[in-house]
Each structure stands twice: as C-alpha cells, then as structure tokens.
C-alpha cells in the first residue's frame, strides 16, 4: 500500500475528484441522519470494493436506512439475514461460490464482504466473526464503529468509550457514564493470525480507500475497523463529522494503522498529538465529564498510543502536556 502520511492526507481536497472512482455503489436516497459518518464510510468503502463483489450486512443502522422494502441503496448484490450472524452468512457465501466454481458452474469467484456495526461485531456477532476468521475464509469484514447500538437508540456496546453517555450508560449521581474501556477489537482480530487487519476512518478517505482495496485483494480473511462518527448518538454538530474523525486521529484516540501478517504499521502519523479534550469537548456524550475523568482519558489514550507506537516501531510524536488539574489544554 502506498503511504499516505499525515501531510498528504491533509491535501485530500486537491486529489479527491480525479483519483477516486466516480461510480456510486451506495446511492443517494437512503435515510441516514444528516452528517452520518457511517454513510460516508459506506459510500467510499463500496467504491473501493468495486465490481464483482457481494455484500452481507448485519442488522443495524446502515441496514435499516438503506434497505426499506421495496427500495434499496445498494448497487452490489446484497444480503441481510440477522444481527449477529453476518460473518457466518459471508462464510456460507464464500463457501458456496467456491464449490460452484470448482464444479464449473461459476466462471468467476465474486469478492465477499461482510459489514456490521460495532454491536453486531464486538458483542453479539463476535462468535460468528471469530469462527469465520479462524476458518480462514477469503473475505473482508468491515465494522462500522459508531461506538454504541445506534439503531435501537444509543445504548452502550463494548465498543463505547470510557466516560461516554449512552441511554444505558447514563451518567448520574453514582456513575460517570460508560465505566469500561473500549474493547480492543482490532487486537482480537489480529490474535486470529489473519493476514490483514486495519483501522480506518472516512475522514481520511485515501487511507480508507486503499486499506479496503488491500483487504479485498489479500487472500484469506481481512478485518477493517472503521470509526464512524455519529452526530445523533455522539451529540455533536452534524457539520463536524469529518472534523471529529480527524480529531480522533490527531488526539491519538483512534490511531490509523494496519497489521499485515502480524506486522503493525501506522499509516497516518500526526507529528504532534493534540490534547484529547479537543476531541471530547465538542461531543455532548462527554459533556458531563469532570477534569478528573478527562485527565484519566488523556493518560489512558497516551499509554495506549505508546504501546501501539512500540508495536509499529514508530518514532514518538510530540505529546501534549498532561496536568492532573487542567481542564482544557487549549
């Protein structure tokens, strides 16, 4: 994969129109909320997938906004079965195509892609996903991580970050909101020993686009974890969705990297990390947090980032100054 570092990624606007495919596979007319980062991600992921592919999708926001009978936003052959079984459906598709090709009934093997939300992936669908990764199917799994069960009304998932307010992790007299740390789904995928794992975010379209391409071309299972900003669930301004994705990367909250055959590499390297609060303070879901929790999140973010840098063998960027008491570092 070409390296689109931080500097290049900032120049996206200059390249975009000419280098990216014009053909749309996820059409307009779907019912996603204004500013939906997931819809933006789907649009560009499907472009990267290109022709000759079939998609299995989990129950969740994206399925609901895009497939109300008798309409569809999907130009790919597309199947939705249930919430927790998408990796198993994709396993069946891949297996079915394989035997038909072997028997000479199918000229060309279509690429198989599975898609699901963070709930459908990290919680209820984890078993099916683990099974599919372990069996080594030639498919790509894309997780739309908007950090909660958004379709059912913003309930917490194991991918909801520490401190976030959701309808089932509400802050109150006795609680700061979500009390657990976000599940490290990427590490779980890597632990299956699969050839390609990556994080991505539609705020970095080139990075996202080429990672998907690479995942699709990699024989065997590939897993891509896409941070998908959700203004409705995150209580953020709809025009800030792309900005928020960038801030997630620039603060080190959601680093962009890939793991090729077990080898980690940062694909976007901010030369300097911003204070986490730059990311937190423009989201209503973190509004209730006190300095104490913000500082805790800052420390935790840097510690996790350092671990990742070590795995990548990357040099340290400039870190923000941490003080126990500071409220905002800007």
């Amino acid at each position: 994969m070409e390296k689109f570092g931080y500097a290049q990624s900032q120049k996206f606007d200059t390249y975009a129109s000419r280098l990216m495919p014009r053909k749309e596979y996820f059409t307009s007319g779907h019912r996603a909320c204004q500013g939906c980062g997931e819809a933006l991600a789907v649009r560009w992921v499907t472009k990267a997938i290109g022709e000759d592919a079939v998609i299995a999708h989990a129950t969740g926001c994206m399925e609901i906004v895009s497939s109300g009978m008798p309409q569809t936003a999907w130009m790919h052959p597309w199947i939705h079965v249930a919430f927790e079984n998408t990796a198993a459906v994709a396993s069946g598709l891949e297996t079915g195509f394989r035997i038909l090709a072997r028997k000479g009934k199918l000229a060309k093997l279509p690429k198989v892609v599975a898609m699901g939300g963070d709930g459908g992936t990290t919680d209820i669908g984890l078993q099916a996903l683990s099974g599919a990764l372990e069996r080594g199917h030639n498919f790509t799994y894309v997780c739309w991580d908007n950090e909660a069960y958004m379709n059912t009304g913003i309930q917490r998932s194991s991918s909801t970050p520490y401190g976030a307010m959701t309808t089932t992790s509400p802050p109150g007299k006795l609680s700061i909101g979500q009390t657990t740390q976000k599940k490290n789904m990427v590490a779980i995928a890597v632990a299956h020993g699969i050839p390609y794992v990556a994080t991505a975010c539609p705020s970095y379209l080139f990075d996202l686009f080429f990672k998907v391409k690479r995942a699709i071309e990699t024989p065997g299972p590939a897993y891509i974890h896409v941070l998908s900003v959700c203004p409705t669930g995150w209580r953020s301004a709809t025009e800030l969705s792309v900005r928020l994705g960038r801030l997630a990367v620039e603060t080190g909250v959601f680093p962009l990297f890939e793991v090729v055959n077990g080898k980690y590499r940062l694909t976007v390297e901010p030369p300097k990390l911003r204070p986490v609060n730059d990311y937190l303070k423009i989201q209503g879901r973190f509004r209730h947090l006190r300095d104490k929790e913000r500082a805790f999140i800052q420390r935790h973010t840097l510690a996790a980032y350092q671990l990742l840098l070590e795995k990548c063998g990357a040099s340290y960027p400039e870190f923000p100054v941490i003080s126990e008491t500071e409220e905002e570092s800007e």
Partner: protein
Amino acid sequence: MGHRVGMEVSIAVSHAVQMARAEAIAAYPITPQTHIVEHLASMVANGELEAEFLNVESEHSAMSACIGMSAAGARTYTATSSQGLALMYEILFIASAMRFPIVMTVANRALSGPLNIWNDHGDIMAARDIGWIQIFAENGQESYDHTIMAFKIAENHKVLLPTIINLDGFILTHVVEAQEFLEQEQVDKFLPSYHPRFTLDPKRPVTMGAFAMPEMYTEVKFAHEMALRNSYDQILKVWKEYGDLSGRYYHPVERYKTEGAKVLLLIMGSLAEVAEIAVDELREAGDEVGLLKLRLWRPFPFQDLREAVNGADLVIVCDRALSLGGAAGPVMAEVRSALYPLAEKPAVLGYTVGLGGRDIQPSTFKDVVRLARAELAQGPQQEFHIFGVRG
C-alpha cells in the same frame, strides 16, 4: 433397479445426501445427529461427494452459513437436533421467509432442561411455526427416500421453501436396517442439478433481506403462507413421481388397518411401527382399532385427515411433546382444530407418550386405548394426559 443394503439409518441418510449431490453442507455436532454429518465429512474428505463441508462454530452459524450457501446458488444441506435446533431458531424463520430451499435432517431429541439426549418431538414442535415444510419418517427406508425427495420438493420453483425431514433420535437414527437404495443414475434423473431462481450475482445484483414496514409485512407473510399451503400439491407430485420410480408411494396421512375402525390411534415418527404391533394384537383379539400416521406436518394435510377419520368415534393422539400449560400436546391441538368444523366428528383425546426417551412398548398403546375408552365413557376429566408418569 435399485439395490438392497443393510446399514445404520444415519449412514443411509448421508448416502441419500450424497446421491442427491448436495454441494454445500454446514453443520455443528450434536447427539444424535452426529453420525450423519460425520459420514458426510468423510465422503467429502475422500472425494466421494463433490461438496464443501463447512465446520461452523455453532448451529446459529450453521443455519446462517446455509443461507449464504443457498444465496450463492449451491444445493445446501444440514442436520441438527434439540439444543442445536433451538439455537438456530431465530434464523429458521428467515431461511423460509427468504425462500431458500435448504434441506435439513432433524434427529428428534428432547429439549433441556433437564438435559436429555433421547428421543421425543419437543425440539421440532418448538419450531413448528418456522414456515418450513416438515415431514416425519418412520423407518430407514423412509428416511432415505424422503431425504432425496426433500431436495426436489424444496427446489421446485413453485415451492422454494426449506424442508425438514424428522427422524427419531437413536431409535431411528442409530438403528441398522435393510433398505433399498436407488441407483445414482435414477437419482440424477429424478433430481437434476439445482437451478436457483435468484442468487447473489454481480451481473444481476439484487437486494435480499430488505426490511418491511407495516404496510408491507402483512403481504410478505401472506405470500409465505400461500407458498407453504400451495406446496402441498407439489409435494404430492414429487411423492408420486418417486413412487413410480421406486415402487414406494407415500401419503400425507398414512392409514394402517383403519377399515371399520371406531377407534383410531394417531402418531408421528418411528413409534408408529410399535403402534402397528399393538393394532395387530388388538385386531386379533377382535377389537376394531386402527392407526393413522401423520407424515406431512407442514403444510398440515387438513383434508386428508378429515377423510381418514371418517367413521371413527374416537381419535387418540399420542403426542411426543408438550405444550406446557396449553390445550394439549401440539399434534392433538392441531388434530382437534382440524376436525372441529366437521358436522360429524370423532372425539379427540390426547395422551403424550415417550418423553425424553421413555420406552414405549406395544402394551403402552393398548393401555392408552383402554384409558381413552374409559375416559370417553365418563367424559374427559382433563385437557390431556401425560402417560406413564410414575407416582
């Protein structure tokens, strides 16, 4: 044509699946289904069956993968039992609503709890309303025959519904029986390769599994209901064609010594063979008792049943499952409501027998007949009976 073999019924079923040239199998082990899938795995491993055998990590994933395989366009088979069927439950409805012609053997076994690996019909009765075609086999020959026929029924473009063949766990699946196999050429002629109506094909992209708002859902379910009801004609056609081929003809409601019978036993599955012995003995003693065997459970053969009970005063339904706190065992409730519209109808009494592998002898059925007659004479005392509860 055809040749006789003696083998365990599970193995015969795996041979039927092989002769049907199933292309994709996804399964998860559970007693007493295991022998079927183990033999299929070995056939695939040895190149005796050109298919993919997918070792999924659960039955939920088995059914999900079967949907994927079928959507890809492959002839798809699986087998399960009890807890495995229960774990599939959610996906079973979706497979039929999406009209995938998956064929599944259910080796009927009691549901937990308490855990019990032995035979009754609790598993399939809990999945009664899944919208699949559901057939019960009585012996090894029927298990083999119906497995082959199931593919032809399910894949018929006028049907396109998944189909379950029920086999009693252990007492049928693990029994060694003599049976007659068709020749491969006969099966190939009877069951040509699968031509799906729709697949997920990049050249003809379709969306499968779109969700339905209240203004669509009723119509989609109505279409599903009509498809299942209308499958009846096609099922009978396939059974007739197979009968002409094999000499073995099957009917939705099978009758055994029902001529002139005032009392009819009714049962599903392999215990019918035990009931036959009881009927023989009763008849020898001059008692005019007959036996009905319900083969086709879904779609329910209302008309066949109404004709079959004609002239009887009493139908004793021997359920193999409970509907706890409900009207009766599931079969009895169904039979009674099927007969209710008749102007002249027999009394219907329910005796649930053989739960969780409780042994059933010919004497059991004779006892049931005696108890039911007494009950009829004094008027029913309770909704139904669980036979043989030890005090």
